[in-house]
Every structure is written in C-alpha cells, then in structure tokens.
C-alpha cells in the first residue's frame, strides 16, 4: 500500500489550490482589513460580521448555497459561463471561489489586528516628508506589520489545505480537477482502502503541524526581536 498516481495528483492539486487562494486572499484581504481597522461606521461591523461568518457557519451551508449560485440558471453561474466559457461547479475555478470565501476570515483577521496596532502618526509623518501612497505602503506599513502578513498568508494557506466540506459539496470528486487531498482521503476511507488513507492522513497531519510550528516559531522569534529594540 503506497501512494498512487492519483494521490500525487491530489497532492499537487491541493498545493495549487492553497497557493492560488492565498494570493487572491492577500490581494483582497489587505485593503479590506485596512479599511476595517480604520473605519468607525456601523456598516463596517456588518462587513466584519460577514467576513467572520465562515468561522461559525457549517461548510455544508456554504457548499449548498455555492452550488446553487454556480448553476448556469443563476446570475453568478451564468455570468461566469459567459465570461470564461467554463462552468463554475465541479471545476478548479469553482474551488478557488469556495476557498476564498471559506478562508477569508483567516487572512483578514490577523491583518486587521496587525493594522490596528500600527501607529498612524508614522504615516502622517511620512506623508509630510513627501512619501507617496505606494511608497508608504511598501516601505512603512508592510515592514512594520510583516508579522501580520506572514500569519495571514500561512493561516490562509493551511486552512485551504484542510478544506473539506465545501469541496465535498461543490467539487464532484474529479481527479486532477477537484479531487483534493481531503476528498481523496475520504474516498479511500469510504472504499475501505485504509492503507492509502493512512498515507494521506499521516502526510496531512505532519504537514499541517510543520506549517504551524513555522508560523509560531516565526512569531515568537519576532516578538523577542521586538523586545530588544
């Protein structure tokens, strides 16, 4: 009993999904978290609650609604089909959409908390010295909140790796397209193929643990580094 070609495919597919999702999430999450950390409007609480919803909603709720939204009879599904010529359900793109929603709070919340601790007087000072918006973002905000960025990216990646319920409901279990590691593992268990299930389960456990050690080790290192300053 060892890893077969389909399991290797599932591994690469999962890494690809996590990577693409993380890149998109960082691009959406950073401005969103910045706005949430600054805004005092009531509307911001509504957005904040929306972002946090995937934390408490069962993945089956997200999966059920997504599948309905993906249908070519509905707005999202039909516009996507017109734009790309591909349907959303049972495709890699569909999984990316699901993962972005599902992992959004894991990226936005660390960033938001990082931005809240950021001293905004520094920005004003930089502005008076003639630093442009991009300059301030790249050379002031990112370096000073890099711990938040690293935490957000790692958590977003790890959480997408561990996604199961949403993919189960919108994926259709297609090797090389939507059959990620957690689904392949579930499939092996259901078919009583415990040997292959052990390989995947053990691998995921070790990988997730290593990722978290990296994350916490990084944070601890930074904390002690900050104290010395």
């Amino acid at each position, binding site marked *: 009993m060892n890893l077969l070609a389909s399991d290797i495919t599932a591994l690469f597919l999962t890494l690809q999904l996590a990577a693409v999702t993380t890149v998109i999430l960082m691009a959406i999450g950073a401005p969103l978290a910045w706005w949430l950390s600054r805004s005092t409007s009531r509307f911001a609480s509504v957005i904040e609650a929306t972002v946090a919803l995937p934390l408490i909603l069962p993945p089956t709720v997200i999966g059920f609604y997504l*599948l*309905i939204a993906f249908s070519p009879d*509905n707005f999202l*599904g039909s516009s996507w089909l017109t734009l790309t010529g591909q349907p959303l359900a*049972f495709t890699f793109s569909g999984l990316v959409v699901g993962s972005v929603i599902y992992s959004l709070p894991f990226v936005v919340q660390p960033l938001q908390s990082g931005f809240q601790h950021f001293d905004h007087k520094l920005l004003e000072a930089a502005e008076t010295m003639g630093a442009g918006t991009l300059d301030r973002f790249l050379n002031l905000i990112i370096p000073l909140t890099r711990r938040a960025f690293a935490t957000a990216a790692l958590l977003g990646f790890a959480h997408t790796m561990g996604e199961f319920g949403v993919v189960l409901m919108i994926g*259709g279990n297609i090797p090389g397209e939507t059959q990620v590691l957690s689904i392949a593992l579930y499939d092996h268990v259901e*078919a009583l193929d415990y040997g292959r299930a052990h390989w995947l389960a053990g691998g995921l456990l070790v990988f997730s643990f290593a990722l978290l050690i990296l994350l916490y080790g990084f944070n601890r290192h930074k904390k002690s580094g900050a104290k010395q300053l």
Partner: protein
Amino acid sequence: MPKMWISSVLNVGRTASNSLGHLLRLKLLVIAVLFITVPFTTVIFCHSVLSDTLSIATASNFRPVLEQLSQTFSEQQNADRESHQINISSASSGVIYAQILQGAPFQLFFSANESYPEKLVASGHGDAKTLATYAIGELVLVSRHDATSPKEASPKELLLKAKRIAIANPRTAPYGIAAMEAIKTLGVAKESQSKLVVGNNIAQAWQFFHSGNADVAIVAASLAYLAESAAVKEQQGLDTIDLSSFLTSPVRQSRVAIKPISPLTQQFLDFMNTPVAEKIITDGGYLLPIKGKNITP
C-alpha cells in the same frame, strides 16, 4: 476547574460591560446557560420516553420509500399502543457496510445490492435468516429537454452531448457501478470519462443534476420518480430513460438484520411482507422480487 472558566467568562463580561448594559449582560448569561443545558435535557428526555428504538441504515436511493414504510409501520403499531422510535440513516451502501463492520449501531441494513448484505452474513454480523431481496431497482438517465435537445434523443446522444454527467461514486455505491456499466455498454466510456461528476451517493448525484450544474444524471428510478410525480416534471422539462437494457442484470437490492435481532426489528421485517408495504415499494418506483426466491449465501 469549573471556577476557572467562570472567572474567565466573567472577565470577558467585564471588558464588554463598557459597551453592554447590565441587563444585556444578564440576558446573555441566561441565553448561554439555556444553550448549554437544553440539548442535554432534551436528549435525556427522549431516551427515557422512547426506549424502544429501531435504527435502520439504508442506501440513499431507498430512503424516500423507507420513510413512508416506517411511517405506515409506526401508525399501525401506535394503534396497538406501543411506543417506539425509528431512526433512518442513509449513505451509499459501501459506506454503511464499512460502518457496520466497525460496529455502527444499526439493526437493519437496506443495501442497493446483494453482495454487501451477503458479506455481512459471512462476517457474522448479519443474520442469515433475514437475508432477502426486497426490491429490484431501475437505472435511469435523467435529462432536461429544451429547444436544442429534442425529446426523442437516445441515451447515447444525450451522454455525448452532455457537458456534465452526474453519477454516484462507483467505489461505494451500487448504482454508481451500474451507471458505469451502462456507459460502457452504450460505447461512450471514453467520451464520458472526463465529464463524470461523482456524488458521494445517489442523492448527491441527484442534487448535482437538480441544481442545474450537471445536465444529465444516471440514478435510481426511485429518485427520478420524486420529481416526476408532480407537474414539476413538465415545468422543468425532465426526461427519464430506462437504462435497464444496458445492464447484464437488474439492480437487485437486499436487506439483512444485524445480530442480535430485537422484537421490534422482527415486527418491521414482518411488516415488509404485507401487501401494504409492497404497494409502497412498487409505488416508489421499484419492482418486487418473485416471492419464495430468497437468496441464500
């Protein structure tokens, strides 16, 4: 130990008290206590009142029929002043088979094939005397007809034209295996391979089709029947084509009782042989096996 969490909850309350009123805090506490205690008391209550429970595991295709069977059975029993509860769990047959091997607390298993119940008898979990074929299922191809696909299209044409074909997982679901066999017999295995979307069981395959994400599905007739019954069929333009002729043998569904057999289990099995029960099964889109031809392992 309990003091620790109480103080931490109160601490959270104190920090929140800046924004929350005193009354609101009290309300939240009451709600929290209710949330924690209600589920426990309800579970205890249910168990004490309804002690006689029959847990049935069924292949997903038979679930709608089994729900009617259990309702009719309960109505008859309640007339005799006997209180009991029937719990129905559904999954693909292979999944239930694995669960029973691992000691899942089911008393009856309605499979979508003959081999899983036979294997359970062989492994000592199932009772050989209760092994019987209870229904013969039909495999159908469900599609929607619109302007571009004429109503008279053949199964082969429909499969070739489809972008997504929903089936149940052939690794665990007998109807998934049957669907693969039909696809092969139709000679479109190669063309269909990349279009297959695999549901966890036949109910999920149906959901993939029903939500509009798959244009055709190969499922049990009993599921397709659900939509066919009403004017819904006409409204949605649903077509069902019988695929039985593309299978070497019909889908024979067997059941077995898991040892030890309780009186309630035996009563339910006896009820299954009554004309009332048989009518529910045939109304649900199944054929009945010829009586007295029970299978023996």
